[in-house]
């Protein structure tokens, strides 16, 4: 699977960087250039644990500056849960009881005072996230964090203006 660019409704998405991790628990995109929007795409992700749980952290901010509402699906059941409003250190990409996992996360307004974040799992199981990162800082670092060491998969970061 080769993806080098995505076309949005207006501006073209440009691939900023890509990684295919086979070790480590965090993939950290640093020195991210300034874009209006960012897009994280992960696919074929597997890890050394019994489940794949991925979260995203921005600018290495570990404070309680994230809010989110979550729709999640497990074993054919759907539930809605609003969790940890303004009280979380990271945002879910997906949580999977089955691997490999895939998710996308759209970060709108990455260079504006309001960052709206939408995360979608691709295979029907996992967390669908709507949230925000409460910071006026321009995003320069995006971390994708796994609960166990990566063994396979690809993570790409795109930007558009």
């Amino acid at each position: 699977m080769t993806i080098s660019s995505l076309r949005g409704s207006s501006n073209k998405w440009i691939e900023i960087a890509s990684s295919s991790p086979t070790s480590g628990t965090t993939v950290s995109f640093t020195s991210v250039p300034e874009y209006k929007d960012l897009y994280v795409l992960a696919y074929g992700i597997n890890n050394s644990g019994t489940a794949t749980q991925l979260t995203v952290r921005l600018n290495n901010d570990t404070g309680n500056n994230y809010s989110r509402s979550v729709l999640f699906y497990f074993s054919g059941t759907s539930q809605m849960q609003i969790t940890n409003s303004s009280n979380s250190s990271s945002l879910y990409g997906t949580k999977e009881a089955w691997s490999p996992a895939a998710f996308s996360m759209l970060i709108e307004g990455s260079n504006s005072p309001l960052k709206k974040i939408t995360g979608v799992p691709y295979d029907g199981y996992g967390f669908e996230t709507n949230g925000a990162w409460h910071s006026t800082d321009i995003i320069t670092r995006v971390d994708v964090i796994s609960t166990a060491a990566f063994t396979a998969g690809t993570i790409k970061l795109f930007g558009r203006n």
Partner: protein
Amino acid sequence: MRPEIIFIDCQTGVETIREMDDAEYAQYLIDQEANATETE
């Protein structure tokens, strides 16, 4: 042996891998505990 972080410099494309330092490892343990609690 501590978990590793893979850094990708988006300006240069250079990828480096290193073990977590003390602060990163402390945060990693906090994250692990938080995730386990939240998804029980």
